[in-house]
């Protein structure tokens, strides 16, 4: 508790001091903006990412900084307030004149900063799995697109090892990410021959805590003679009472497995996971993966946060990869100038914490491996399936007819985030 208070205070002092000294030493430091909520509902998830960024910056400075300059993190608090995200982004770009911003968690906050970062030609690294259907010139998406998380998870549950599910319950929180993801999933399931009556869709508000009826409905839906699986896009702390209710009503993962896209090690940390063993999550990273890079990362994190019990999770890895790629791109370009760095980002490679190498594609999405894990009694995930190699993130889903036609490619001749044909078509013919 005390530690938290101290680190918060330190972060606050840091932000204030940088705000005052900003203009004076702009030339000899490189500034990295950190735009994560440190208060409000999303603080639960985002505070960790702020700490991750401070650790990465700290680490880089120990190694001698970047381009011979010291790197400085500018932390602001958008307080889980979506419009405030846009204001804080403007503050970072025009007052603090940061060279790059790492931030956001919810899709709605990302949509809120999008016009600002495009208007001021900033550079944002967005570290969280999301619904896709977007590609901005000024944003690099280091989290998973639906084809790197949702689709493989559903395919696994359809497979023999996953239990050959034939009936599907899509549960989600009522906002843009779950609704879009479920739209894609519904289209995918239909394309695999699943009938409409075998799909149940249900939405609940943020922070929903009374799951009795919905869990009872799921149980009823599952007793129709076909193997049933639940796909959960429930977000935030509503997951805790949801899983508690599953455990209390005695639903075992063997009977009705639940695969979640927003539940990671951090979310399970405050939960007795014994009744949840076997429920699944799909991510690009699990803390439990045995890899020497991962081991080193966890060690560094524990040393930085001074708590051996803290867990690591997927968005942290996304920031780790994103930040290191940005550092490489800056070194290559020899400047932090946004347009130069963006060009240098394409094709940038960096080792994943789970093995293999992540690649930044020209659609601003990463190629990463996909892992499916089962919850263990200790709150960790045990990988039960993973892709052979990496999967390229797809900005526009192939399963929604209107978006299947669209291409995102920010290099010549396309130079476009949502086109049906290259912008410079005439030049290549």
């Amino acid at each position: 508790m005390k530690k938290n208070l101290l680190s918060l205070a330190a972060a606050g002092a840091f932000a204030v001091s940088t705000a005052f000294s900003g203009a004076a030493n702009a030339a000899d430091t490189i500034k990295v903006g950190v735009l994560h909520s440190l208060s409000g509902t999303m603080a639960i998830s985002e505070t960790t990412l702020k700490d991750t960024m401070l650790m990465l910056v700290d680490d880089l400075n120990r190694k001698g900084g970047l381009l011979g300059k010291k790197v400085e993190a500018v932390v602001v608090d958008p307080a889980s307030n979506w419009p405030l995200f846009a204001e804080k982004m403007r503050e970072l770009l025009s007052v603090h004149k940061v060279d790059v911003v790492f931030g956001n968690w919810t899709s709605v906050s990302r949509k809120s900063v999008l016009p600002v970062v495009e208007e001021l030609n900033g550079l944002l690294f967005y570290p969280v799995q999301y619904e896709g259907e977007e590609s901005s010139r000024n944003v690099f998406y280091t989290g998973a697109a639906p084809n790197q998380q949702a689709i493989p998870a559903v395919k696994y549950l359809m497979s023999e090892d996953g239990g050959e599910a034939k009936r599907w319950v899509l549960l989600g929180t009522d906002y843009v990410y779950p609704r879009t993801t479920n739209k894609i999933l519904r289209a995918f399931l239909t394309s695999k021959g699943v009938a409409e009556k075998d799909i149940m869709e249900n939405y609940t508000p943020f922070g929903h805590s009374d799951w009795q009826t919905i869990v009872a409905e799921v149980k009823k839906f599952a007793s129709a003679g076909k193997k049933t699986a639940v796909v959960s896009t429930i977000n935030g702390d509503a997951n805790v009472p949801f899983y508690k209710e599953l455990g209390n009503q005695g639903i075992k993962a063997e009977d009705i497995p639940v695969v979640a896209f927003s539940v990671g090690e951090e979310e399970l940390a405050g939960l007795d996971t014994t009744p949840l063993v076997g429920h699944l999550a799909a991510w690009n990273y699990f803390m439990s993966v045995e890899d020497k890079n991962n081991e080193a990362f966890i060690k560094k994190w524990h040393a930085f946060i001074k708590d051996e019990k803290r867990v690591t999770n997927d968005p942290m890895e996304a920031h780790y990869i994103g930040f290191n790629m940005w550092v490489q791109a800056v070194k290559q370009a020899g400047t932090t100038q946004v347009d130069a760095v963006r060009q240098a980002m394409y094709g940038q490679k960096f080792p994943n914490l789970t093995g293999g190498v992540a690649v930044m594609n020209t659609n601003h999405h990463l190629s990463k491996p996909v892992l499916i894990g089962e919850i263990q009694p200790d709150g960790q995930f045990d990988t039960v399936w993973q892709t052979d190699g990496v999967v390229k993130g797809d900005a526009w889903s192939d399963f929604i007819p209107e978006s299947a036609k669209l291409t995102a490619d920010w290099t010549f001749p396309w130079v476009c985030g949502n086109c049906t044909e290259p912008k410079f078509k005439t030049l290549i013919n």
Partner: protein
Amino acid sequence: MARIATLPGRLAALGVLLTVVLGGALSAHAEDARDFDALVAGLNAKSFKSKIKAVDAVAASGHERAADVLAVFLGGKLFARRSDGRIFMTERSGGVYLLTDAVTGADAGQAPGKKLRKVRVNNRVRVAIRTALGGLTLLSPDPAKRSAAADAVFKSPNAGFLPTLEAAIARETVEKIKIKLIMTRAAVQLKTGKTDGIKLTAIGTLSDLATPASRALLAGVVQAEGGNAISEAAAGALAGIERKLAFWNAVGNIFQGLSLGSVLLLAAVGLAITFGVMGVINMAHGELVMLGAYTTFVIQEIFRTHFPDLFDWSIIVALPCAFAVSGAFGIAIERGIIRHLYGRPLETLLATWGLSLVLQQLVRSVFGPTNREVGSPSWMSGSMEIAGGFVLTFNRAWIILFSLLVLAALIVVFKKTAFGLQMRAVTQNRAMAGSMGIRTGWVDAMTFGLGAGIAGVAGVALSQIDNVSPNLGQAYIIDSFMVVVFGGVGNLWGTLVGAFTLGIVNKFLEPFAGAVLAKILVLVVIILFIQKRPRGLFALKGRAVEN
């Protein structure tokens, strides 16, 4: 733990022996330790498919340790040594694992986690293990194990289990488990029976069993058979089961409605005093609930570090503590802020709303922004299956009971104590009460403290079903006001009826309208209702109302 379980293991092996002998297959004597060694090593195969084969082979080996090994495998405590791949049953103790050789059952010392690799298991393998274990433990002396075994075999009916099932039915003494076993036999016969006669009899037997599992089984048969006599009989039985399930579904809805109602009641009853009786619009009421929840967390931390054995009692201890903490905050709020604002509702509203933000940030600074884990005592965890898929969850049942107890206690305080009398006197006619020698300022502070303390107690209960976070209170403030206004301001019975009515209506709407729309509909209904009856369900009558 491994050694304790050898007796059931041996008996289970006997059961398999019976199966094997009756089935006329290979002799169980052919197995020796080395073969079992190879079978157990097979559990660590790379693909899940081979693992399942190994599970079946281990179960069929008839080895006395088969059931033990499989049970440990199911629990995820089977590990392979990295150096040579030898399989061990493990028990974690501090930083190391205590090892027991899986094949021999001998103590094998201890090893650090780094030297071991978990034998992986997924849901599909777990189903296979549970089924195999079911076959092995149908004759277990432990009734709970026999019951679980019957359930496992029911879900994966297989002709190989029939002889063991017959033997189990013949010697079963517990009526409830015997019925379960007979139903399981029917399920096996329905799935694997050779003649239509057997299958039709099985359907007849199963039609008496109204559970989601039997519904799933029969629905599967209807889909698979398609149009013949068996499918028709199954469809007939299914219709009967559906009717029974629908009844229990309604019972479940009522229970869930009562449960939601009890949560609303707990959240609102403190407000029924501060807002209902005193007329203070306290927007920080939710934060007083939150403080109660955090008090529970602190008490539990103390129990965890100092008296881990008494953890089940922590929540009982937390109740008076939460009452005291929130009550003290309440009195401080009344003395410090609200008493200066009596008769100025708008200022009170703004001041207490600001206070709610302060309290939230205070808790966030002290305890951090992340949720805190509040554990459930063992007597509040788990559930009991009553019938027809209706599950009574213990935490919800306790909370319903608890909310009624709180209300009853409050009514006693109001009606039977001198303090209650003074409270009513002051709220009805302050000047007269004052001239009778009642210290009205003191009564105000105590009344507000009582309402706040009750909010804290509600926080203890809510910590069992909701997240303990700085935002906990915000979720309940609107609902609380809704209940008090709907029930009738100033009337505790109204609060009771209002809370349960809203809870049940909400839960009956939810399956049709969804959680979001159900809540909106309830709000619309309340708005319309308030238009008709501005004073709520049970309006106070008389002179007190007029001012």
